[in-house]
């Protein structure tokens, strides 16, 4: 059967990186860590489907999730936070999350290992993640994404900051939105 043609589209991209995974592996061992990650992958995958994510790609202690409707992103982020507050296997095992959100054109393709998302926007959201803090818990949102978010979240956004992307040779304007409470 022929694979579907690549789909080029402007989408919302959410990147999540778990903090404290090195400590988890050092403290509890790699067997426990891999079981914890399996639990995380299973539930995060389920939640992404429930929140209409087009695809979710796990990269060890991180994931990239893509949404056609940016309004679906924050409910998904909150569900991930809740997962780590309520799931007995996950509670207390991580130092928090780094969340970043960007909006841009990407290509969705089917590959030999599943659906893949490609494009400069992918590199932007992954690099932007380095600006996110866990204390206080927050999400960093590019200006392009913020402009498309519901007004209730736009009102919570902090002042403009800029992230220098040496690799891309440009800077990206972003804002911080607190996830506390």
């Amino acid at each position: 059967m022929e694979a579907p043609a690549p789909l080029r589209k402007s989408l919302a991209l959410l990147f999540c990186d778990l903090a404290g995974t090195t400590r988890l592996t050092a403290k509890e061992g790699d067997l426990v860590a891999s079981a914890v990650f399996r639990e995380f992958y299973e539930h995060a995958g389920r939640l992404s489907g429930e929140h209409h994510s087009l695809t979710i790609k796990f990269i060890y202690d991180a994931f990239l999730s893509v949404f056609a409707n940016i309004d679906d992103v924050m409910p998904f982020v909150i569900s991930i936070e809740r997962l780590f507050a309520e799931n007995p296997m996950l509670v207390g095992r991580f130092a928090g999350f780094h969340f970043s959100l960007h909006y841009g054109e990407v290509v969705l393709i089917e590959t030999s290992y599943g659906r893949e998302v490609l494009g400069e926007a992918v590199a932007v959201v992954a690099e932007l993640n380095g600006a996110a803090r866990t204390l206080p818990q927050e999400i960093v949102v590019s200006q392009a994404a913020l402009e498309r978010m519901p007004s209730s979240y736009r009102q919570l956004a902090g002042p403009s900051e800029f992230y220098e992307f040496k690799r891309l040779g440009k800077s990206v304007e972003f804002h911080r939105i607190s996830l506390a409470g």
Partner: protein
Amino acid sequence: MSSISSNPPLPVIYSAGTRSVRDLRTLVSEVAEGRGLRCLRSTGDGYLLTFYDPQSAEMAAIRTVEAAFELLRRSVLRNRQVSEERALNLRCAVHLGEVDIVANDREGPHISMAYLLEEISRASLPAALNPIPPEQFPLQNYVLCSEEVAGILSRRAQQWELSSIGLLKLKGFPGWREVFWCSPKQRKHSSAPVIVKNH
């Protein structure tokens, strides 16, 4: 006693997938000694090499990539003369950075980086961002290089084509690292780099 090199040598790893390590050592010596080889250390089924150039570290990087392609060329020629069991199939990774010089060895995070680059294979690509399709990544006989080396080659050497294979997380190193597949420019339109066929 260890010391920090003032003019950074270049760590490289050549890894062989066969037991013909002695032949590999001979080939490595032939191609590397005239190009500023400073250290040659066995890693079991391959070698760690570091290079030095009196002009600049950037020239050392270029000499190293030259050595890697010459090594691939010679191993292909050799493979035509030997049985399949004795064929050398190589993966090369080139990185540039400052290293600690110890007797007959080199140490430091840039050495680790070179090893991590050398470990990259098709199986690594699903965990990369913006990866090339795994089927396009060669199984053997190729040269990978780090962002640092790719930057030098793109500025100072026109004979090689650089293709990003994606952004990868390398264990022990923060952030994302873009890794490049280096191939001779005249083979731009070929679908795969050197494929070894035994007679």
